[in-house]
């Protein structure tokens, strides 16, 4: 079982990226499970994913990075025992501190994870403002990710995309970084690179 963590601030494009990646994984006949944690009383992302025929486990009534960390581990156990997915994609809420999730992983006692990968999604339209206002949250996601996706390359100007790339590189110089348009199907080569 591979674990793929997709993080990013609220509205950055996490769900759109996950839909593309889940679609790409299923095209290769991989069994995919998605764990979603949304802020708020109504889970919108899980409703959409279900409408698109994806298998979704929703963690509710709290934040996956603090009050629901144990629930994440429990959910992984249940998935391992009852569903045996090859790939689990976790979408924390955009307000979660993603590093806390990885700290919980040693408490997972199921089948050993074959790999754990972390993709952070960045919104070039708001990254400079968010880096100023929510510095620890945004920088932590960039610093620790294995790959960075700059979303909304169709909505942002080339200058905004370049500025986002530069800001991300300042924080994590060596990380693979891709600017994408998430309203279009993901390039298969990129999907293959991002998927564990």
């Amino acid at each position, binding site marked *: 079982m591979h674990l793929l963590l997709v993080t990013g601030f609220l*509205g950055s494009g996490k769900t759109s990226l996950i839909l593309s990646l889940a679609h790409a994984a299923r095209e290769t006949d991989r069994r995919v499970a998605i764990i979603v944690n949304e802020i*708020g*009383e109504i889970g*919108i992302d899980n*409703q959409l994913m279900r*409408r698109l025929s994806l298998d979704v486990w929703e963690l509710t009534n709290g934040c996956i990075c603090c009050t629901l960390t144990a629930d994440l581990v429990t959910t992984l156990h*249940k998935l391992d025992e009852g569903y045996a997915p090859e790939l689990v994609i976790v979408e924390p809420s955009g307000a979660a501190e993603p590093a806390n999730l990885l700290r919980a992983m040693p408490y997972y006692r199921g089948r050993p994870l074959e790999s754990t990968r972390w993709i952070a999604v960045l919104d070039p339209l*708001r990254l400079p403002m968010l880096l100023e206002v929510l510095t620890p949250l945004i920088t932590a996601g960039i610093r620790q990710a294995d790959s960075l996706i700059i979303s909304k390359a169709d*909505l942002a100007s080339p200058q905004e995309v370049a500025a986002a790339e530069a800001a991300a590189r300042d924080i994590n110089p060596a990380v693979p970084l891709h600017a994408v348009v998430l*309203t279009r199907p993901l390039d298969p080569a990129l999907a293959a690179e991002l998927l564990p």
Partner: protein
Amino acid sequence: MSAPTLEPYATQQRWQSAAPLLGEAWQALLVAYLAGLARACDAAGPCVIGHIKALALFDTGDYLRLSAISAAFPPTVDGRVPDGLAALSLSLNVLVYGLPAAALQDLTWRTAAALAQNHALTLAEDLPSPPEDHAHGNMRHHRA
């Protein structure tokens, strides 16, 4: 600068028209709603709009997803509304740093009510409904 606080607000709304509308008309209305709500939040005080997102599901299998992240950018749209609907239900999450949930509730309702009045629509708001599928504590599982 200290990080502003986040008090999420969520609701479900029922929009009703006296006569069936084209899907494009519903879509334009809801885009205007989210854009207006983003502007209203922006005007209400110092805040950072995290995400205002809405979803409508239809019996045809279609869906409409709307997303606003700022008053400065128009909402983005994914999916479509089928033609000929006289009513739709909308799930709405309003995630704005710096504005209390009570203020978000007020802005959400006022913006919708004004739009409904301008377009001769009726509007009702519901509390969030319980999950459709079985639940285990805080975990809800929805199998396709």
